[in-house]
């Protein structure tokens, strides 16, 4: 076990835990933002530099500060480490710079982007960015690439977090056929010779994409996410866990995604059949409304767990029951 001080808060975590995960155990506003790191994907992290923190003391043995800011998502804790995040102005300044860098070539087409409302970059920029830009040059643009009937790749929005590459390596079956081509600001996600990414778990690249670069073609331009209502549901699926979130508008299921935790990380990967093909309520056992963070724009219309289907509550998977205990539904009339 290692005891660290993060923004003045002491916490004890197992050896080998990264600074970011230690901070997540504390929770709240002190958690550094992460644009590329994704806990379920091995090897991810260290690229976006959004989570840079100051290590004011390296360890109890060697209390010297680290000379540069370190990426908290990949740096393991040491016993006696003192980390400064929100308490250090230089860290916040650098973070502001990172937002600026990520946005200079981003099209900022949020009004027409399907990811708006659940976009990591949008949240990150809202929290840490400034409202104007110093960038006068032309923005880098790419042609949209068609990578099959289900997924749309719009490289112009990409921030090159590499998450989808790791998904293809670690989650999807078969050989990875997409990757990063080119380098520098001309680097792009692509399939080299245009090809269809087609395997049972390819749809997960949509869930891990922090921006609107990879979107669900069955949902594109159908609805703003904050007008849809997320509902937890499950079905018996031979390929995956079958635990999903259905996004309703009225009585129609517009979209199916995997369930995510509060940091936007997928809990259980889902297969393409669940994601793209099962779009009828009758395909699913409805568990009840999915929890949406109060700060999210999706709960802007005060949509937060108002009711629960009592008849299924006993049959719910343990994970959902735990979630319900942590985030109990509001009692009507209270």
């Amino acid at each position, binding site marked *: 076990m290692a005891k660290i001080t993060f923004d003045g808060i002491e916490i004890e975590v197992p050896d080998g835990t990264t600074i970011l995960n230690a901070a997540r155990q504390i929770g709240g506003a002190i958690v550094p933002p992460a644009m590329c790191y994704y806990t379920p994907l091995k090897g991810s992290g260290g690229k976006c*530099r959004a989570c840079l923190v100051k290590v004011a003391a390296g360890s109890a043995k060697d209390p010297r500060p680290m000379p*540069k800011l370190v990426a908290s998502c990949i740096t393991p804790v040491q016993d006696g480490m003192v980390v400064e995040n929100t308490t250090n102005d230089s860290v916040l300044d650098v973070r502001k*710079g990172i937002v*600026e860098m990520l946005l200079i070539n981003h099209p900022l087409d949020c009004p027409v982007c399907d990811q708006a409302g659940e976009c990591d970059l949008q949240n990150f920029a809202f929290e840490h960015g400034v409202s104007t830009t110093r960038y006068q*040059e032309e923005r*880098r643009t790419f042609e949209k690439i068609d990578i099959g009937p289900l997924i749309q790749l719009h490289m112009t929005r990409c921030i090159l977090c*590499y998450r989808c590459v790791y998904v293809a390596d670690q989650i999807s079956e078969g050989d990875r056929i997409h990757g990063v081509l080119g380098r520098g600001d001309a680097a792009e996600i692509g399939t080299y010779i245009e090809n269809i990414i087609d395997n049972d778990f390819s749809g997960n690249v949509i869930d891990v994409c922090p921006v609107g670069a990879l979107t669900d073609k069955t949902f594109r331009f159908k609805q703003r996410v904050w007008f849809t209502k997320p509902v937890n549901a499950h079905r018996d699926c031979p390929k995956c866990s079958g635990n999903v979130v259905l996004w309703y508008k009225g009585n129609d299921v517009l979209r199916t995604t995997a369930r995510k935790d509060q940091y936007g990380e997928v809990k259980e990967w889902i297969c393409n059949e669940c994601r793209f093909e099962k779009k009828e309520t009758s395909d699913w056992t409805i568990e009840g409304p999915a929890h949406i963070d109060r700060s999210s724009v999706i709960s802007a219309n005060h949509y937060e767990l108002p009711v629960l289907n009592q008849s299924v509550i006993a049959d719910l998977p343990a994970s959902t029951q735990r979630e319900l205990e942590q985030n109990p539904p509001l009692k009507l009339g209270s």
Partner: protein
Amino acid sequence: MGRKLLTEHINVEGIETLDVYRKHGGYRSVEKALKTMTPDEVVEEVKKSGLRGRGGAGFPTGLKWSFLAKPEGVPRYLVCNADESEPGTFKDRQLMSKLPHLLIEGMITGSYALGANTSYIYIRGELLYVLRILEKAIAEAYAAGFLGKNILGSGYDLDLYVHPGGGAYICGEETALLESLEGKRGNPRNKPPFPAVQGLYARPTVVNNVESIAAVPVIVNEGGDEYAKIGVGKSTGTKLFSACGHLNKPGIYEIELGLPVEEFIYSDEYCGGIWKGRELKAVVAGGSSVPILPKELILKTAAGENRLMTYESLSDGGFVTGTMLGSGGFIAMDETTNIVRNTWNFSRFYHHESCGQCSPCREGTGWLEKVLHRLVHGHGQMQDIDLLVSVAKQIEGNTICPLGEAAAWPVAAAVRHFRDEFEWHVTHPQEATKAGAIFPGKLVTA
């Protein structure tokens, strides 16, 4: 005339062949090390020599070697970084093409010291002709029993391979080099773990520059203490400088560290002064990534002392009034040089070579280049100059690998020392964009 330890026989006819190289004392260090020394003794000699990495960072080589993790039953690797692609630096190319056996000898002795049984030379893809020279030399070394099984009857085995890269500057960064050597995309790795613990194929690995490895035979032959006598302070031994730019005698010079910069530029023994009788304006002392210095600061430190060609003296004054020795790419610029245009040129290189993995470097290098492009072509505004400094600061220190810094330093330094020239480009756009225009408002003809 200083001593030449590496390049003493470089002009001997046929020195690239094993026979001639042997006649001039070649492979003595292999015999000495394998027959009379333990690996630790070789490491100790290199430590004593005070040899510092010649690739740019100047980290003590012996110390680097002693950091190598040595778990039982796990192979270790020595990798030679021959991906020399910094603008202004061309010393390794010459060393390898003229003295391939010196590098091979260093690789054998070094691998023995580190206990590596497989070693690699990762060579820049553009240097195909050097690759052929090296491969020929390696074949000769195999035939003569210096490589392969049971070298010189000592029981030590070593296989040496040359691997050409695709010609990416980023693959000169040691972890990107290892990725590339493994057959992957040349993206730098996050550190830790450092290569000394998990390098090539996740095995303990040492990555050294060509010149560092080429110095090992000399150190083993002469002894570390003897080597350390050359030079000043912590800058020991000799160093190759590739001098280029507006000099009378550009070329590669092996100098004893501690030579005054003024003597290096103006002495007939070395660069022979500035061409066409012109004045020196600025110098980039260690390859394009180190900060540029104006004449008055490169010849004398801020304290008024003579600046010497040593790691310490060149970095005297930090980045405010100093620079770095870097990889030894010495670029001299005469009074007709347009510093803004030159900075744009450097910046263009880093923009092109950024791997695009981490956001500050990917976006920042392009931004710098575009702003400089605007300034050079007379579309700049006054606030652009501060913008350059600010963007450079946002990149510096926040990236995965040092390429970010390499891109930011030259821009920040150029603005620091030549701000008036940048301002002139804003205030006099028409004058500044004329062909041959130089600050302040003169025109050069031929």
